[in-house]
């Protein structure tokens, strides 16, 4: 565990060594802030964070791979991966350390966004429970997107490849509802089951940018369901596992 912490700490510091962390956090707050404002500024609008959540789940399709694209691609490009893999380190320690660093960035942004919640409590009387479950869902969803981003980053020494593949996979899992809406029976159920959570109908504030069939919908409504939690955790574990596997396979080539 010490080694995981060492790697996580190093990556976390690296985020702040460049403008990267600040730029991403600023973009996150600006975009989610726009959605938040749009959702609560009408007369008689509800005091909820659903607008914020819509912006967040949508934006993370691009933000998570942007946060993770450097993590494993750069090690390959600089040749430092050779050092890591010839040090007494396990592949899983490398991957977990990097995952934790990126997830911590997400936690910080989630923390900063609590400002929106504060605004709600100052100017309105919001229902607290959906806010709690909304944030819980957001972190689970975020973990899954970061795991996918990290997986994309191991594929190539080129960071752009990581970004494009990561966003591509996330987009694919997001627009699945376009397909599932057009098929019936088991196929539709399976596709619905894979729906990551965001929806591209973000500008339609009635659906709050959250896919109705997706695993995020219930969290946004204030419902915690085991199947949704299991889905996000499975996606996270699956992609972290694949990342470790690819690092191991890399040796054998």
């Amino acid at each position, binding site marked *: 565990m010490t080694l995981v912490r*060492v790697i996580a700490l190093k990556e976390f510091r690296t985020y702040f*060594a460049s403008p990267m962390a600040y730029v991403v956090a600023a973009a996150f707050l600006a975009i989610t802030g726009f959605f938040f404002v749009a959702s609560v500024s009408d007369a008689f609008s509800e005091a909820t964070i659903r607008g914020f959540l819509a912006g967040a789940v949508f934006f993370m399709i691009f933000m998570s791979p942007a946060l993770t694209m450097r993590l494993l691609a750069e090690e390959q490009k600089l*040749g430092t991966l050779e050092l890591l893999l010839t040090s*007494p*380190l*396990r592949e899983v320690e490398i991957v977990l350390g990097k995952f934790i660093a990126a997830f911590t960035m997400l936690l910080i942004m989630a923390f900063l966004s609590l400002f929106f919640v504060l605004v709600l409590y100052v100017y309105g009387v919001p229902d607290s429970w959906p806010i709690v479950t909304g944030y819980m869902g957001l972190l689970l969803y975020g973990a899954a997107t970061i795991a996918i981003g990290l997986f994309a980053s191991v594929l190539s020494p080129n960071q752009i490849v990581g970004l494009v593949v990561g966003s591509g996979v996330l987009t694919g899992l997001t627009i699945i509802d376009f397909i599932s809406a057009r098929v019936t029976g088991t196929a539709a159920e399976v596709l619905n089951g894979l729906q990551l959570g965001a929806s591209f109908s973000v500008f339609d504030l009635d659906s709050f940018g959250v896919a109705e069939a997706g695993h995020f919908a219930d969290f946004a409504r204030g419902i915690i369901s085991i199947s949704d939690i299991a889905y996000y955790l499975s996606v996270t574990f699956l992609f972290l596992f694949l990342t470790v596997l690819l690092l191991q396979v890399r*040796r054998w080539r």
Partner: protein
Amino acid sequence: MIKLEHMSKYYGAYPAVIDASFEVLRGEIVGFLGPNGAGKTTTMRVLTGFTPPTVGEATIAGYNVMTHSLDARRHIGYLPETVPLYLDMTVTDYLTYMGQIRGMNLSWIKERLPVVIDQVQLGDYRQTLVGKLSKGYRQRTGIAQAILHEPDVLILDEPTIGIDPIQVVETRELIVDLGSRHTLLLSSHILPEVSMICQRVLVIHDGRIVADDSPSQLSNRLQHTERIELGVTGAEGREVINLLRDMTVVVDARSDIRADVQQRAAREGAAALLVDARPGSNAAQHVAASVIERGWGLKYLTPLPMTLEEIFLELTTEEDLGA
């Protein structure tokens, strides 16, 4: 400390290293010499556990690099060919991080850091970003990370490549100094460099280890020889050697050659011999004639295709100042 047994490494169908075996004892400084693309880096990657061998085994400090990988890796300090550095960290931060990854605790790192920085003469650059260092200083930073955790075995892949001549001299002095504390294997494609630093030289060419000798012995053999391998029946190896050594075209004849060649010859009832002859003397013909004249059987006679000298021609034999 370092042991490689019948290791071959294939990339797809392409053989990078074929049946390489050698051993480096504690405290030895061994040079791994070969032209570019001979298989030096691949061998080092196998030894450090970065790439698994296709067949054969590698052992570091008694630990198999594949089955007891973590234990083996704890004993290695490694400088890959492209010096792996995080460009956005300072020298101190980088070395501290590398130490931690090697399992050192902070108090040990704190104790070692000034010693190592002094050793590689990076004193003025402690707080400099690695990305701002010149090539030579980057190389030193790379060496520093390899020795920080006081590994038993130090593996340096082309440690002097691409740095300016003055720094090359300093780096070599540093390596000789390191050799007094570590078991050291370093690769190079520059002949004088290896002779200068190492007590023993392994020559690799086209994936095969073709010589394993001290630098002075190697230069002796470089005195223009042509090699012939032959198998003789009906005589003791000793007798044949005596006969051959008396011939004017023969520089030396011996029977202490590779075990697999000896065994193959023995199965056919022949004694296997290796002859170093003067080049251009038509030695193969003379040797064959002499053997047959004695009434012995000549089972086979093979001029070895690549002599050491030809391999050395591909090496950089002079100090290349432009490199």
